[in-house]
């Protein structure tokens, strides 16, 4: 479906731009608590960088870097991080996602434990959103056929 473009301008531009986009996405995830953004928005920007890679370098070139298997693993890992932090707070006799209970584990003050807990949850959300965004785009681009040989 998506052929490799032989336009050198677009390819070079994307190759230069993608690392900066991903760095910006990490900034959005990390600074989610005192600027607009957060896990979901950062994950969408990360997914957009992968979509840009697919558009400019083709599906095969992108799959060498991030395969569909690792996308599935990333999406599960993100949900695991989110739910894991929540259940960890349950185990430490708090409510679900009650970050203040994490202070005992991390041996930090209460407020800092809340901040770190929110950061961990947002990293999980970002990973899951990136993987699911890319997975949806991948399935639409291949027409749901799941194997790239059919499309070239």
């Amino acid at each position, binding site marked *: 479906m*998506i052929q490799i*473009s032989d336009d050198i301008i*677009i390819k070079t531009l994307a190759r230069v731009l993608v690392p900066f986009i991903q760095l910006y996405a990490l900034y959005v995830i990390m600074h989610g608590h005192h*600027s*607009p953004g957060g896990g979901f*928005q950062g994950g969408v920007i990360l997914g*957009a960088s992968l979509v*840009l890679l697919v*558009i*400019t370098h083709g599906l095969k070139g992108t799959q060498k870097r991030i395969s569909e298997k690792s996308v599935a693993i990333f999406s599960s890992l993100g949900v695991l991080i989110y739910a894991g932090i929540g259940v960890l707070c349950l185990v430490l006799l708090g409510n679900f996602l009650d970050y203040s209970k994490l202070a005992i584990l991390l041996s930090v003050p209460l407020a800092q434990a809340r901040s770190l807990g929110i950061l961990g949850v947002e990293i999980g959300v970002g990973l899951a959103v990136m993987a699911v965004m890319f997975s949806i785009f991948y399935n639409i681009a291949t027409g749901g056929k799941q194997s790239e040989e059919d499309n070239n």
Partner: protein
Amino acid sequence: MDTFFLVIGMGLCILVLLVLYRVVYGPGVFNRVAALSAIGNKTLIILLIMGFVYHRVEMFIDISMVYALLNFIGTIAASKYLEMEGSIL
């Protein structure tokens, strides 16, 4: 100074409406894609002006950077789709 930015922002909103005519009725796909990019650029500036009006420009810079990024990717995707179709228009 706030009034100045407000007036500039309202003027840009009117310009967006003018460009929107080209998106809806424009002959051909290329006019529509170009007009969409123009609307994206104007929206970016309007976001920054809103930041100046609310005195929180450091927040709105983040939003406008994301907006510019997604606009760029959208334009490339649209042109890629045209390339896939094989025929112009």
